[in-house]
């Protein structure tokens, strides 16, 4: 596979290391211009590699780093790619895996192994919810733009709900509801492991079981009933019963009326949609956890199962890995102000605030002063104050003159780039006027056609045919 075979397509990679299983997806995508700027589109035919999920390798001390490294190498070898070909993507350590002591170190290991184009993160629930929605339900939600979609990403350790409308996430949350808080010997309900949350749950139900004990079907039903009631409360914005509020580690704020569809992702989501398509369930506890029992309980709930047949997301539950591949990055426009492309990629740039057209040079200087304490590059969003509309030439020249004035006396060192993010397709012309056509402030970078987001950090990947991937995190 060579670059010349891509024909304008870019290669994306998504990795999801969850509480139970780990998945990978490698796909081509085509950058296409739409009303909202450039978006990546891909079809089933574009998927290069998508093997069956494998169990996440755990050891006594957390995630088994050596086994994980071998897993990564094996995937890449089978797919026939090397990391340098990847345009963008993400790797996420989620659920119980993210709660392991070495999760951050693992995220760093993945990042190091797969190159700088990838966004690797561990234990950021809001990001996980967002990606799950974008990977599975965003396309569906765009088809009914007047209807909210609430996606429940139910994995081994957590349920990450995200409420969205017309393809955009409005709010997200995180709950300790998952299939793997109780682990069993596969094919039975004999307990082989309990998470702290699992222990607490059993205690609260008056079921003081320990490893080696076999739970009765009734006991399992009591556990899944708690989860289902909590999910029903979540969906209907009723709030969790006081006794179970501890399940909500990051409660979801719905506060919206109107029609709402419910979709699922994660391992339990996959089970639900597979059942919906075939009518079959796998053998109870065949995965050694509560997944099948929980999926069955959800399917019996009229509240939760109402949209299962009519609103199946395109990826049938395997949302997170698709979300990582497709949506961990936005794609910039193709005409950026980038005098020194070699300055990319730029990782972990703090997003310090927003500069606005119409501000005086003095006001702009005050905002720019936030960068003074930063040793490396910084990023600001730039707002022309005209929404999505393109500013006129006079407005661009005026705004550029004010910013140029504000930058006077401020040396931008090559290793400390100042990155501006614009919504409109005006990066090159704005950057050229600010820098007097590249004669000053050569460390200025203007990336255009990216949406403004409330994020603390941004990662900007290398340029491909004039475009760059932009990933926000610390949402």
């Amino acid at each position, binding site marked *: 596979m060579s670059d010349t*075979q891509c*024909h*304008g397509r870019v290669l994306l990679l998504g990795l999801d290391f969850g509480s139970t299983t780990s998945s990978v997806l490698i796909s081509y995508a*085509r950058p*296409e*211009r739409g*009303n909202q700027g450039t978006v990546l*589109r891909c*079809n089933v*035919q574009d998927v290069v590699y998508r093997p069956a999920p494998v169990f996440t390798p755990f050891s006594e001390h957390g995630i088994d780093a050596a086994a994980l490294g071998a897993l990564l190498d094996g995937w890449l070898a089978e797919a026939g790619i090397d990391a340098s070909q990847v345009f963008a993507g993400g790797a996420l350590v989620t659920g119980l895996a993210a709660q392991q002591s070495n999760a951050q170190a693992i995220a760093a290991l993945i990042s190091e192994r797969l190159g700088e184009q990838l966004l690797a993160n561990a234990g950021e629930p809001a990001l996980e919810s967002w990606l799950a929605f974008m990977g599975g339900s965003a*396309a*569906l939600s*765009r*088809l*009914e733009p007047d209807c909210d979609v609430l996606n429940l990403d139910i994995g081994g350790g957590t349920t990450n709900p995200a409420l969205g409308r017309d393809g955009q996430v409005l709010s997200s949350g995180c709950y300790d509801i998952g299939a793997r808080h109780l682990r069993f010997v596969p094919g039975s309900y004999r307990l082989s492991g309990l998470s702290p949350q699992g222990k607490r749950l059993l205690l609260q139900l008056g079921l003081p079981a320990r490893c080696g004990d076999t739970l009765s079907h009734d006991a399992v039903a009591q556990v899944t009933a708690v989860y289902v009631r909590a999910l029903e409360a979540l969906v209907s914005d009723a709030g969790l019963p006081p006794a179970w509020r501890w399940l909500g580690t990051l409660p979801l704020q719905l506060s919206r009326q109107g029609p709402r569809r419910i979709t699922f992702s994660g391992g339990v989501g996959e089970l639900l949609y597979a059942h919906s398509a075939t009518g079959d369930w796998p053998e109870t506890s065949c995965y050694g956890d509560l997944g099948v029992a929980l999926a069955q309980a959800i399917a019996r709930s009229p509240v939760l199962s109402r949209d299962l047949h*009519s*609103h*199946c997301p*395109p990826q049938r539950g395997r949302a997170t890995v698709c979300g990582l591949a497709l949506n961990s990055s936005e794609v910039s426009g193709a*005409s950026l102000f980038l005098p020194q492309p070699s300055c990319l990629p730029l990782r972990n740039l703090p997003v310090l605030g927003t500069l606005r057209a119409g501000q005086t040079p003095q006001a702009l200087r005050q905002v720019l002063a936030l960068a003074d304490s930063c040793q490396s590059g910084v990023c600001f969003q730039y707002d022309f104050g005209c929404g999505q509309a*393109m500013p*006129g*030439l006079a407005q*661009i020249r005026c705004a550029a003159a004010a910013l140029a004035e504000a930058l006077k006396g401020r040396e931008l060192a090559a290793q400390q780039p100042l990155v501006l993010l614009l919504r*409109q*397709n*005006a*990066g*090159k*012309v704005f950057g*050229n*006027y600010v820098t*007097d*056509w*590249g*004669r000053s402030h050569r460390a200025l970078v203007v990336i*255009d056609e990216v949406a403004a987001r409330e994020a603390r950090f941004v990662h900007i990947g290398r340029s491909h045919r004039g475009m760059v991937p932009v990933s926000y995190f610390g949402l």
Partner: protein
Amino acid sequence: MYKLKDPDSIPVPEFKRSGPYTVRLLDRQFSFRDLNHLLGAADFSKAGDRGAGLSASGEVEREAARSVLSGLTLQHLYDHPPCDGQGRIDSVMRVNYDIDLSVFAGIAALSLGELKDLCLRSPAARLREIGSAMTGVMVAALTKLLDVHELILLAKRLKQGADTRARTRLGLPGTLSSRLQPNHPTDDPDAMTRLIHTGLSMGSGDALIGLNPAIDTVESISRALHHIDQVRRETGAPTQICVLAHIKTQLACLQRGAPVEILFQSLAGTEATLTGEFDVTVALLDEAYEVIHRDGPLAGEGANLMYFETGQGSEYSYAKHNNLDMTCCEALCYGLARRYRPFMVNNVTGFIGPETHLNNTEMTLANLQDHFMGKFMGLAMGMAPCFTLHSEVTIEGQQMATGLLTAAGANFFMDVYLGIDRMLAYFDTSGHDDQTLREVHGLRTAPEYEDWAVSRGIFVRDEDGGVQRRPNWGNPDIFAPSALAAKRLQEAVPAHYGADNAGPRPANAVTRLARINQAIAREAIYTDLRAGEFAGLDLRRADTAARSKAEHLADPELGARLSADAAAALAAEHRDVQIVVSDGLSAEAVHHNLHELLPVLQDGLDSRGYTRGRTLLAPCGRVKLAESVGELLRPRLVIMLIGERPGGDALASRSLSAYLAYRLERGEEQQAAAAVSGNPAIAYEYSVISNIYPSGLPPAEAGSVIAEKAMQILERGAAGNRLEQVLAGAPA
């Protein structure tokens, strides 16, 4: 598989000079220099032939030519094969002489007038026998004697017993089939799927599902073939598929196992065009014929596995018509096509534009001629009476042509959704048109396909044996796994103005949207450049040789050079950059972009200290005007800002392009450019920045992009592919 005759074994007479031919009508003497000029003058007047200097000056001269032609025998035409520019009988002409000599012996002594009468008196089988004994030139000569009724009558008669067979049969009496054309600007699979579903739900695509690809590579074409094959299998529609890439690409795809069911190639009536422009030889076509009949997925199942496209004027548009008129060149295509017993031949006369067919009459007459000629030479002719917005052909003219061609028994039309091709920016027939014509003329689809369409609730057979639409007609959702999936697919289709139908026609609201977009796009072409709007931009005017919009549209060459007066007023200035602004094919593109683009571009160039001449405003210009200006003013770089040819989208009709023409002085740069281009005489290298309009590349941003590209060109001393190689680190 039919065994092809070795071209060298085909007897062809030596070239002999023909003419002059003279005739006196009342008191006027008419003289025609040679057979080429006689044939040209005998034809209906068409823009391409007028441009080539072959048309008659008026009706009397045309009738004089027809009078002379009527008296020439077939033997005379046989003995005088037109030659190419080097006095040679080219390979296309040679193949045309592969005729049934025993039949020819029986008709050789007939004059063309006698032959015409014989044809009008003959049944279908005898007509086909006569056609098999005639070269393309002979058929073209006969055609020039036929009026509209005769062209329709004879073609209709030829529909009997001339069907072809692949997975389905094509051309059976009582049928009107269609080729479903799911084109998309980037070959998007979802858009293709939706367009295929839509067409199939309308009973379209029984002749073929055929994509004109945007990207002609083995990988991309293979992917498209596999995708279309999968969609066809999922729907169960009995038809055949094709991706209309270059024949070499398709053969490579077939070798890799892609489902190349029908092998396609565009043909031309002169070897100079066929080989020089299309990169195809008779030997290659021979090889392809053998491969597809031996290794293709339908080998054994279908007797006819090739598909050709032709259209009057392609040879003339490349100036490689060997001084033959457009009808003759077209007939020579058919003489080549019949060698391979194709499944279908599609005629796209009208596609090129007003330089070959100016208006409805010229397009319609040419279509009727082509249809008859193809049928007479034994081909399964389908027709695509089509147009571009810069011609005077209208949708009403196209519809009238389609009605006449249906009466003449055309085997198939195109199904381009709502008539708007989303990739090729032209207008063709739609699935709505095809169904309407089937209903008007009591026709039906291919029988195998009809069975399937009945089973899917698209059609129903009534008590009288006729076929009626059912509720599923025109509802593509019947093929999608869910309503939401259908909606997702539909979102991928550009210029989709709605799916509502009223009987076999689009609902009025849908038609109005499509027509409004088309009207605005067409207006952009015919709007004159309003120079007064640019008073603040310091432009100097320089007229091209096209004195009016009509001249500009009819003859592309006029817009490629300055008028004598304008040229005389300019002298070498030797600046770094000369900017030229022209409306090209959309004045609105200039009106809506120049105010924001030009100041940015000039600021950028000035920032680097480049000298630039005062910007020229040249109404009615073409891209090549850059070179005419370049030779006069002698700048290093000409930046040509020019309006692009509009398609069917109102906003995109305001799209401007920038052609950056780097003038190559003799020396190292020119030698390097010659090595990269393969053209030893190359004088200009071009870089292009296109799609400049507010919803595409906004004009202010475009000004900056063009300025940076100009800086790269001037700094590196290269443009086009050579510049990209230099920027990528390769030696220039």
